[in-house]
């Protein structure tokens, strides 16, 4: 199986957000970065598919600054075979620009992917768009937010959560899949994997992106929530809590 996985370098979910001096982006000083958590499910799924097939290649792609090489190394340490970084100064606000660059690279060398995997969204910009856009650009079928996946030959069955239920869909390979939490349990890179990753091929290609159709005007911290109150201690405080919810907050 020949599998591509597209990953993104993002600020850690425990990171506190400070706004940069330009008022438009994150102040990265002191912020820990790593692989987008949903992309870890995608990497893990690719490795398992290759292991099940007994042969094949898992290639990791990322678009971002030079520091994203570290993110690709994480995926290589998990077991991916090689990586390609499409290097830009910054990830564009317009996901379609990212999708076009990735699609062009995935087509390069003849393509021939059985599966192209993404996380269902990035936990920084929350856009959930690059995966399905790449599928459109490559003319491939796409299933998003997959929490369970079965593949039998050139046919796949996937389960995805929708409001109030689980949708079961069938699709032919090759296909683009975006991974949701629950798809698998990603492995931690072992020391041996981390050592091996240092010697795996990682190619860096500079890319020029278009201006895009989304312009960032500002990034700001949300208004603070007004300081609340401790109603009391133990079950004795409950009647007062209910009164406040009814009469003051008017939510009951």
């Amino acid at each position, binding site marked *: 199986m020949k599998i591509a996985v597209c990953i993104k370098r993002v600020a850690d979910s425990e990171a506190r957000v400070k706004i940069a001096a330009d008022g438009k982006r994150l102040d990265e000083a002191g912020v820990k970065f790593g692989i987008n958590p949903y992309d870890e499910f995608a990497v893990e799924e690719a490795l398992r598919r290759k292991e099940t097939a007994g042969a094949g290649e898992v290639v990791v792609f990322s678009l971002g600054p030079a520091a994203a090489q570290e993110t690709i190394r994480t995926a290589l340490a998990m077991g991916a075979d090689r990586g390609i970084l499409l290097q830009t100064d910054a990830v564009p606000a317009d*996901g379609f620009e990212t999708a076009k660059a990735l699609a062009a690279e995935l087509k390069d060398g003849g393509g021939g992917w059985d599966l192209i995997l993404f996380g269902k969204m990035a936990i920084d910009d929350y856009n959930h*768009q690059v995966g399905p856009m790449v599928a459109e650009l490559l003319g491939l079928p796409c299933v998003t937010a997959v929490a369970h996946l079965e593949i039998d030959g050139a046919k796949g069955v996937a389960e995805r959560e*929708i409001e109030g239920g689980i949708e079961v869909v069938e699709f032919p390979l090759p296909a683009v899949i975006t991974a949701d939490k629950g798809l698998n349990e990603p492995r931690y890179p072992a020391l041996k994997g981390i050592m091996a990753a240092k010697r795996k091929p990682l190619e860096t290609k500079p890319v020029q992106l278009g201006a895009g159709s989304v312009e960032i005007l500002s990034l700001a911290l949300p208004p603070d929530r007004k300081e609340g109150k401790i109603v009391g201690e133990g079950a004795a405080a409950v009647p007062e809590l209910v009164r406040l919810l009814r009469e003051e907050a008017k939510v009951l």
Partner: protein
Amino acid sequence: MKVLAVCEQRDGTLRKVSFEVVTAARRLGAEVDAVVCAASGPEGCAAALAERATAGGHRAVVFAATATGKDLAPRVAAKLGVGLTGDVTDLAVDGGAIVATRPVYAGKALQKVRILGQPAVLSLRPNVFTPDEASAGITPETIPVPDGGRVTVREIKPAPAGTLDVAEAQIIISGGRGLKEPANFKVLEELALAFGGRAAVGASRAVVDAGWRAHGDQVGQTGKTVSPGLYIAVGISGAIQHLAGMRTSRIIVAINKDKDAPIFKVADYGVVGDLFEIVPKLTEEIRKLHG
């Protein structure tokens, strides 16, 4: 500005987000065409919507950021050759351009963007735009969807009767490690029942990772970001990634034995103490109200 509002229906009934989408679309322009896909195949539906937007000369295409909308909107945007502005929580028109506000970093920050795409393609976070009265009377035009998509829906397994998705619930009761073991979530489920079908039970990342609750129930940066009218956090200390996912709730109640837990910093009302005494008492009081 001519706007295409993409509605959703299930079993022939329009879903609540449809009224939210129409209401928000009217903020952008007086001329709103509400449409709904005749079939659920994502490929056919995306093709039909892109065609409709092009033929209709719409300046904006508005989706709800539901499971369906998140799947469709980027496909339609790609077909139209523009980016998607997803999960929008506020909208305005400024000098002819659409300016959208959207939470990023799971709500730790708010990004404001000007959408230059022609058309603008955007999706709205559910539960944020309050449907106006005029939207109640809409009858969306059903647009035909071509057959023969490669991705086909084989079946929809409904969630157990009476359970509500946390992304759509007006009231969420979430539990964390303080519940001590999976079986104890029963006390939260009983409270949810007392609210009479309006409440869903959510969970912190810690208990989802421990396998106590389903992934779909997780609230936080790597789960769902929610904005219910009432959020009750039970036995949740309030890790930054959890707070990010629920801080836009209208009213937050925290129940925790540790009076210094960070959750009390964002809560409107807090009760300190043993949740196994407090929650059953709350259930009893809510039952009285609804009795």
